[in-house]
């Protein structure tokens, strides 16, 4: 637990000082010599702006393959089985640590990524990758509750409201986060490796999961939008995206008072990547102030890019939204997922399989 606390003060500082200064911004230019090459990106679903990739293709004269995944575990499984040819992956903090330890990532060459200077300095050197050898922040955010404001006109403030709701609920297929939330109620470390504690968390979730109709793989917001569930446990930006899409107040996002998960997703290059040089060029492109801002404006997650925030490229609405940049006192209440090691990982996977099986009984 203490290890994570090292990370939290950092996030406390992130509530942006949005002194929008309109700076002159030179559009990002691609270094010479990549024309005709191919870059393959493996990213979370609904996690990029419509024009991010086409603009990069145009700037560099390259072709981009773009595939999506729904969870850290799914991406990890794919890379562990032998990288099928991806140049970029986007693991969360604990997964970066895990992958680095298993030698599944290759070191970044900062000389090729000058835009690293744009990042908020406090977000660099996090506990999961102290020297930023393998990763640079992409976006950060929280896990919380997306809900229908029609069903909950007074909002949601506690996980107990989720457990006790008499109506369909979707959970998030993010095992460490879900078990971590149960650990909060059981007074355990959210990243515990103790077998009994892990099983207790599984049983806690089983007991509270009577209203769960599906454990959604990063598509809970769609179920909420279709009206198939009243509550979806999801990543904040995904819920905000549907509110923005429908231009309505039908959906809201809340972080329950008991606490939840805060995460940083990172740009990394997996081992056996066919084109690591172009991957670093892409990372530099993403860290450009304008590109990063456009990204955040589209996907509604918090930007780690100081230049994007200060340049005024990010919409005021986003900078001032507590669901995206939570206030410091709320951040203090959140836990981060760390690498629990191979043994605990297997325990967690088994517990999660069992949970999926018995939830539907």
């Amino acid at each position, binding site marked *: 637990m203490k290890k994570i606390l090292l990370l939290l003060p950092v996030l406390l500082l992130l509530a942006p000082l949005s002194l929008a200064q309109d700076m002159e911004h030179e559009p990002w230019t691609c270094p010479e010599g990549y024309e005709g090459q191919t870059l393959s990106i493996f990213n979370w679903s609904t996690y990029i702006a419509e024009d991010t990739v086409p603009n990069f293709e145009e700037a560099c004269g390259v072709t981009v393959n773009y595939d999506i995944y729904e969870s850290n575990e799914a991406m990890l499984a794919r890379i562990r089985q032998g990288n*099928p040819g991806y140049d970029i992956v986007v693991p969360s903090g604990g997964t970066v640590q895990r992958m680095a330890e298993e030698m599944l990532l290759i070191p970044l060459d900062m000389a090729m990524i000058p835009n690293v200077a744009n990042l908020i300095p406090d977000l660099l050197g996090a506990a999961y990758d102290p020297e930023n050898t393998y990763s640079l922040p992409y976006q950060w955010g929280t896990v919380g509750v997306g809900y229908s404001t029609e069903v909950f006109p007074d909002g949601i403030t506690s996980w107990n409201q989720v457990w006790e709701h008499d109506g369909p609920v979707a959970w998030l297929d993010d095992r460490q986060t879900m078990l971590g939330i149960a650990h909060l109620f059981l007074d355990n470390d959210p990243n515990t490796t103790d077998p009994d504690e892990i099983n207790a968390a599984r049983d806690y979730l089983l007991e509270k999961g009577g209203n769960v109709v599906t454990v959604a793989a990063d*598509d809970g917001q769609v179920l909420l939008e279709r009206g198939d569930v009243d509550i979806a446990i999801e990543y904040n930006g995904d819920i905000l995206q549907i509110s923005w899409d429908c231009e309505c107040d039908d959906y809201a996002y809340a972080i329950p008072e008991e606490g939840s998960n805060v995460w940083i997703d990172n740009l990394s290059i997996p081992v*056996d990547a066919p084109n690591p040089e172009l991957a670093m060029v892409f990372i530099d492109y993403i860290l450009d102030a304008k590109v990063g801002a456009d990204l955040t404006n589209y996907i509604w997650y918090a930007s780690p890019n100081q230049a994007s925030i200060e340049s005024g490229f990010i919409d005021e609405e986003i900078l001032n939204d507590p669901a995206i940049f939570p206030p410091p006192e709320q951040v203090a209440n959140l836990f981060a997922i760390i690498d629990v090691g191979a043994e605990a990982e297997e325990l967690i996977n088994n517990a999660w399989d069992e949970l999926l099986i018995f939830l539907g009984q």
Partner: protein
Amino acid sequence: MRQSLINEGALRRNRVIRRLGSVGLWLNPIFAYFFLWAPILILVLFSFNNSRSVASFTGFTLKWYSNILNNVMGAESAFSTEIMLNAFRNSLFVGTIATAISTVLGTMIALAMARGKFRGLRLLDGLLFLPVVIPEITQAISLAIFFKVVFDWAALISGERIFPGFHTIIAAHVTFNISYVAIVVRARLADMDPQLEEAANDLGANPWQAFWRVTFPLILPGVISGALLAFTLSLDDFVITFFTSGVGTSTLPVFVYGLLKLTVTPEVNAISTIMMVLSTILIGISLAMQGRNASRA
């Protein structure tokens, strides 16, 4: 007297049963056709719906189709539409190559089994039958593991990593297609008179000529409908492709799967309608071929 009375009762009962039965025999098809077609009609209907809702039809529009068409015409369009068309091209590419290989291999084994007199024919029957009946997911994971093992070995030996891609998808598709082609061609061969080829041989044709001049034209309708079947199966396959595809080689079903889970846009309905029309045309051609085949036989 008594005997005939019982018969009278039995007959009346029989008549009631028959009437009920005939009503049932009419109701069942009506119900079944409704069940089979309602979802598809709803899908088509809502592909023309003005709003995103699937609960009520608010007005007619072609905008979901024009979004898709715009891209075909090369006009500027959304990133996701571009990925979709790319997936469609991948599907056609995989389907064409897999169909070509599996048609040749399937026809060869069908011919061998029709005239072959060698041991293990029944074993071959089983070998051809198994890919048809084994659950898709089993075949999918077995191929995924197989390619992983082979590529790991290759990397150990040569130091070069091979990545999964079109070659793995095509190999997988050929594997499940062979059986279907063989079954169709064998059915055609079973109807054929073996004396025709013998006659050609007697008339001095060498086996090569006898095959291309006599046998091949006769089994051609079977080969074509086998190939069309293989092509449709290829285009339609999701599970096996999902497990064997590499980077940037997603086929249309794999793309659609991602879309079904992540969007509520009626563009999905429009794409479905287009795909259905395409399949209908393909199967129409295949049926026409078989019809010609039947009328000639």
